[in-house]
């Protein structure tokens, strides 16, 4: 098998590929009359109009097939300025303005996160970029939000709590929702049929800065804090991961505050294939289905959706160029970084290089990702009671008895062994009972080692590996540290009162005692 592959690659380099390359003399494979302009997949040449139809159809099919977005729902489009998300916003724009039969039926808003501080951009550059961004946002006509990444420092700890989720709609529920929506539209008549997006736009003429307590541009102190956080991280891999995490938290928070129940991100097929392989390397194999699937419900009430996951980067770039989709170029954290600078870059180079020799690489990885199933971990209680990672909100997959994942657990238990010696002093914030004993006294807040252990033990394996590259967890935004402490304290209290809690086993006894108590109350005699 390997030998055959090698021969193929060698012969491919020596001469042109065995597959006959489409030439300009050929006609479009679809309509057989247009002049082809772009080659999709391994040899299908499309003309301009067929390509547009193909591209738009893929977008609609992805949304229609998954039936997650109900009519009239508020959907937040996460726009980074880059080609894929710009294309997505453009598709939504066009989709909303079509004739009523084929019109997209949700209510969009757009969010742009300014990450200039994390990427080391100067203030003037950021202001210039923001001006371009705002111009494009205003032209879309949707309500838009521009938030700076510095606002993570004013996020509440509740953003890390997975809010209760509404049960996912069934097929019938979706159909009835669509039918009733269409009936409503008919009833309103053609005047009332103005797209809901336009209506909302009139009520929010220029919906700019986020009311997260920020009047204008972020303060210098916050920018400073953010740069300090990112410059303290030792590796580019950890920086990219942390940036993604913080950005997601910020977007989810904005979505929650403004009543959006879905967020659309513009990850393309190529990007998701790269992400799948990268996440395997980062130790996040257990969560691939959430990280690369169409929908990601880990935040509970806000669902992340990826409608561009069937489009390759080549298709996106061609479409944007041929049909004039506006986008803004902003340097990212890994711009001009060498190939081996981070796991993400290395994997990107690997996949893209493989793709040139074997054009089905990306689609194969993509098809594999489609088969991943989100199964709850065996043996663990599923649902909100199961512990989830502090940062990525996936189910905690650390098993202290399992040697492979125990390394992270070891480092934290090591720290906790050091602490009892110093725990003689009772600290007020944690122990209401005022006990000063080493075993029962929970770690004090002020101690660096404690806070660190407190956070680390709440993380999944992948996040722990990332946090190893942060020498100190102090520069992290306060909401992370506050939530970590809260969860630790809850866990400690829960452990303390465990024996007093009534579990399912005790249910029978409980019912009996309840029956007796009821009798007692009825006859006026206490237990």
């Amino acid at each position: 098998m390997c030998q055959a592959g090698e021969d193929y690659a060698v012969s491919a380099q020596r001469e042109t590929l065995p597959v006959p390359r489409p030439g300009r003399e050929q006609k479009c494979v679809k309509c057989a009359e247009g002049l082809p302009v772009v080659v999709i997949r391994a040899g299908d040449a499309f003309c301009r109009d067929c390509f547009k139809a193909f591209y738009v159809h893929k977008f609609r099919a992805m949304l229609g097939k998954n039936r997650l977005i109900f009519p009239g729902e508020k959907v937040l489009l996460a726009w980074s300025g880059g080609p894929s998300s710009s294309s997505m916003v453009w598709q939504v724009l066009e989709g909303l303005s079509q004739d009523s039969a084929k019109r997209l039926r949700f209510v969009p808003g757009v969010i742009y996160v300014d990450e200039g501080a994390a990427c080391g951009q100067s203030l003037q550059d950021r202001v210039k970029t923001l001006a371009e961004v705002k111009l494009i946002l205003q032209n879309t006509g949707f309500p838009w939000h521009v938030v700076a990444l510095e606002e993570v420092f004013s996020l509440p700890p509740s953003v890390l709590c997975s809010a209760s989720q509404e049960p996912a709609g069934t097929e019938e529920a979706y159909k009835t929702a669509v039918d009733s929506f269409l009936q409503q539209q008919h009833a309103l008549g053609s005047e009332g049929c103005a797209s809901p997006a336009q209506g909302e736009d009139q009520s929010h003429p220029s919906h700019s800065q986020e009311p997260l307590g920020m009047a204008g541009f972020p303060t210098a102190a916050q920018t400073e804090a953010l740069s300090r956080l990112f410059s303290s991280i030792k590796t580019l891999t950890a920086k990219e991961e942390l940036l993604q995490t913080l950005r997601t938290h910020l977007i989810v928070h904005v979505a929650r505050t403004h009543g959006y129940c879905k967020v659309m991100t513009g990850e393309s097929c190529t990007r998701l294939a790269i992400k799948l392989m990268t996440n395997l390397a980062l130790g996040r194999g257990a969560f691939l289905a959430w990280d690369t699937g169409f929908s990601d419900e880990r935040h509970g009430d806000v669902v992340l959706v990826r409608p561009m996951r069937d489009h390759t980067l080549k298709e996106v770039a061609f479409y944007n160029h041929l049909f004039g989709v506006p986008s803004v170029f902003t340097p990212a954290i890994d711009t001009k970084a060498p190939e081996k600078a981070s796991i993400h870059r290395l994997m990107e180079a690997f996949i893209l290089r493989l793709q040139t020799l074997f054009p089905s690489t990306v689609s194969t990885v993509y098809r594999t990702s489609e088969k991943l199933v989100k199964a709850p971990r065996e043996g663990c209680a599923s649902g909100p009671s199961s512990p989830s990672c502090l940062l990525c909100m996936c189910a905690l997959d650390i098993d202290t008895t399992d040697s492979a994942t125990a390394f992270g657990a070891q480092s934290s238990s090591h720290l906790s062994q050091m602490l009892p010696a110093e725990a003689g002093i009772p600290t007020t914030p944690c122990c209401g009972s005022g006990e000063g004993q080493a075993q029962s006294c929970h770690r004090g807040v002020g101690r660096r080692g404690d806070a660190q252990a407190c956070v680390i033990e709440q993380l999944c394996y992948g996040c722990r590996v990332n946090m190893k590259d942060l020498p100190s967890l102090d520069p992290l935004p306060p909401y992370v540290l506050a939530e970590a402490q809260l969860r630790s304290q809850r866990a400690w209290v829960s452990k303390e009162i465990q024996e007093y809690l009534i579990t399912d086993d005790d249910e029978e006894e409980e019912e009996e005692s309840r029956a007796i108590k009821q009798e007692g109350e009825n006859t006026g005699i206490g237990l």
Partner: protein
Amino acid sequence: MAAPLCVEVEFGGGAELLFDGVKKHQVTLPEQEGPWDIRNLLVWIKKNLLKERPELFIQGESVRPGILVLINDADWELLGELDYQLQDQDSILFISTLHGG
């Protein structure tokens, strides 16, 4: 023998960062022995236009994987890729797909 050619070379998608931020370049390719094709053009670009980090643009003989080449708004795969022979007033566009999302 190839007469001097005037072509427009354009960079997009972030590739312009390697060329001092300049997106469009009107270039006049000098006279040379054999015909001008994309292969020679890349060598010429590397020598004359590329300001920094050649490995981010060119890999071996061809462009780095992830960089699309459009010749007169058509995919270069339809025109022979590196073997396409340049003509006067052609427009070559290099789009980097690696940046952004």
